[in-house]
C-alpha cells in the first residue's frame, strides 16, 4: 500500500476550503462597508490583515508562548491519557477505581477551576500547561480505552488458543487496534489544548495570545484582537494538520480507511 502523505482529495478539500473562507471574508468586508460599522466593533478584514502584518513580531512572540503551552499540555495529556487508558482497561476493579476520578475531573468546569490552578502553579507558563492538559486529557483517555477494549472477541480467542497470555494479546492486538482511536482522540484534544492555554492566559499572566486579546480589548484595539484570532486559528489548523500527517505515517491503514469513509459520506 503506497503511503501518500498528501492525497488528491486533501488538495481538493483544501481548494474548496479556501474558496469558502474567501466568500465569508468578502461578505464581511461588504457588510462592514455598506452598513458603515465602526471599526471598534468590527474592523475590516483588510485592516485586520494589515494590522497583523504590522504587529507581526508582537503576535509571533505571544503566539509562540501560547503554542508552547498548548503543545506541552497536549503532550502531557497524550502520555498520561494513554497510561490511564491502559490502567482502566486492565481490570474491572481498576476501572471502577479510576474511572470516577477521570469523569469527576471532566465534570468540573475547567474555566471555573482555572483561577485555582493559577493560584497553585503561578502566573507563568506552568499553570497554562496544566489547564491545557486538564482539558485535553479526557478525549485521549476515552478514545484510547475504547480502542483497547474493542478488539474482536474472536481475535482474542484465536490468540488465546495459541497460548498467548495477556501481555502478548495486549502488544499484538490491543495496542495496534487502539492507535486509530488514539488519533481521533488527539484530533479533539489538540483543539481543546489551545482553548485551555487561552483560558489560562485570560485569567492571569503577562504573555500569550490570550493575554494580548484581553489587553487589546480593554484598550479598544479591536483590529489587534482580530489579528490575534487570525494567528490563533492559523496555528490551530497547522497543529490539526500535523496530527493528520502523523496519523498517515503511524497508522496508514486507518488513515486510508478514514479517507474512504469521507468519500462515501461526501464530507
Amino acid at each position, binding site marked *: *500500500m503506497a503511503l501518500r502523505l498528501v492525497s488528491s482529495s486533501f488538495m481538493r478539500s483544501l481548494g474548496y476550503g479556501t474558496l469558502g473562507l474567501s466568500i465569508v471574508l468578502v461578505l464581511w468586508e461588504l457588510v462592514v462597508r455598506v452598513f458603515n460599522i465602526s471599526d471598534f466593533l468590527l474592523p475590516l478584514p483588510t485592516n485586520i490583515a494589515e494590522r497583523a502584518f504590522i504587529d507581526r513580531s508582537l503576535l509571533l512572540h505571544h503566539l509562540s508562548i501560547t503554542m508552547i503551552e498548548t503543545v506541552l499540555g497536549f503532550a502531557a495529556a497524550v502520555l498520561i491519557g494513554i497510561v490511564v487508558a491502559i490502567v482502566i482497561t486492565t481490570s474491572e476493579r481498576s476501572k471502577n477505581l479510576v474511572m470516577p476520578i477521570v469523569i469527576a475531573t471532566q465534570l468540573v468546569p475547567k474555566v471555573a477551576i482555572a483561577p485555582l490552578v493559577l493560584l497553585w502553579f503561578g502566573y507563568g507558563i506552568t499553570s497554562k500547561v496544566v489547564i491545557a492538559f486538564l482539558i485535553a486529557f479526557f478525549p485521549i483517555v476515552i478514545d484510547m480505552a475504547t480502542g483497547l477494549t474493542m478488539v*474482536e472477541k*474472536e*481475535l482474542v*480467542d*484465536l*490468540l*488465546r*488458543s*495459541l*497460548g*498467548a497470555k495477556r501481555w*502478548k494479546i495486549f502488544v*499484538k*492486538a490491543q495496542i*495496534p*487496534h487502539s*492507535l486509530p482511536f488514539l488519533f481521533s482522540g488527539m484530533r479533539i484534544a489538540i483543539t481543546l489544548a489551545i482553548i485551555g492555554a487561552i483560558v489560562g492566559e485570560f485569567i492571569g499572566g503577562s504573555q500569550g495570545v490570550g493575554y494580548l486579546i484581553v489587553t487589546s480589548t480593554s484598550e479598544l484595539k479591536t483590529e489587534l484582537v482580530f489579528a490575534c484570532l487570525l494567528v490563533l486559528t492559523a496555528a490551530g489548523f497547522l497543529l490539526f494538520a500535523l496530527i493528520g500527517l502523523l496519523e498517515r505515517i503511524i*497508522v496508514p*491503514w*486507518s488513515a*486510508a*480507511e478514514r479517507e474512504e469513509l469521507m468519500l462515501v459520506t461526501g464530507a
Partner: protein
Amino acid sequence: MPGDVIALQGVSMRYQARGGSTLALSEVDLQVREGEFIAVVGPSGCGKSTLLKLISGLLPATMGNVMVGGQLVSGPLRNVGIVFQSPVLMKWRTVYENVALPLEVLGIDVKSRHEHILGLLKLAGIQDFANSYPKELSGGMQQRVSICRALVHDPGLLLLDEPFGALDAMTRNRMNIDLADIWARSRKTTILITHSVSEAVFLADRVVVMSARPGRVQAVVDVPIPRPRTVQTRASDDFAHLIQQVGAHIGFEYL
C-alpha cells in the same frame, strides 16, 4: 479408546448470566479419529460453537471430560488452528504477516518458515496478495487468508466455526471444493461447524446432528462418498440421498 484423537464424555456446558443460567450443551459424547473430518450441524443456539471452545480449551466444561490426544484438556491447546465465521484478520498487517501470526505467538522463527508460508498462500490461491492489506481483499479471499493462518503452524487439529457462513452461495460452493482439496493434502483432524447440510455432507467423513438447546448429539451419519470429492460429487445420487438422511434428523423445516 485408542485411535481417537478427540473424546468427549458426558460433556455439559452451563453459561452463567445475569438473570439465571443457560444449559448450552447436555451430556455430549463424541469420538473423533485421527485424520477424520467431522461436520457438526444443527439449529442456531444448539451449542455448536461452544463445542469448539471446549475442545480448543478456551472454555472449561461444566461437567464431563474433554480429551484431546489422550490428555485431559485444561487450558488452551496451542496445537489447534481455528477459523471463525468472520476472517478476524489484523487490518494493520499484510496478508503474509497475518498468516505468520501463529508462528510469532508460538515463538517460531518466521523467516525459517518463509517458503512454507508462500506455499500455503499458493495452495489457497492467494499468492499474489501476500503484500496486500486485508481490506483490499474480498470476503472470500480474506477467509482464504484466515484458513492459511489456521494451517501455518501445522496444528494437529483444525477447528472451523461456520467458516463460510458469511459468504454468498457461489463463493461458498467454490470454497468448499478448495477446502476439500486443501484438506486432502494435509488430512488434519478437522471439526467443521456449519448450518449447511450440503456443505457438511460434501466435506465430512461423518456428520454429527445436534438438537436445539440444550445441544445433544441426536444422530451421527456416516458419509461413505469416496474422495477426492469434486463438482460431480454434488450431482451424485449418494450425495442427494445423504442430504435427505441428515435432513430427516434435523427436521426438514431447517433445510
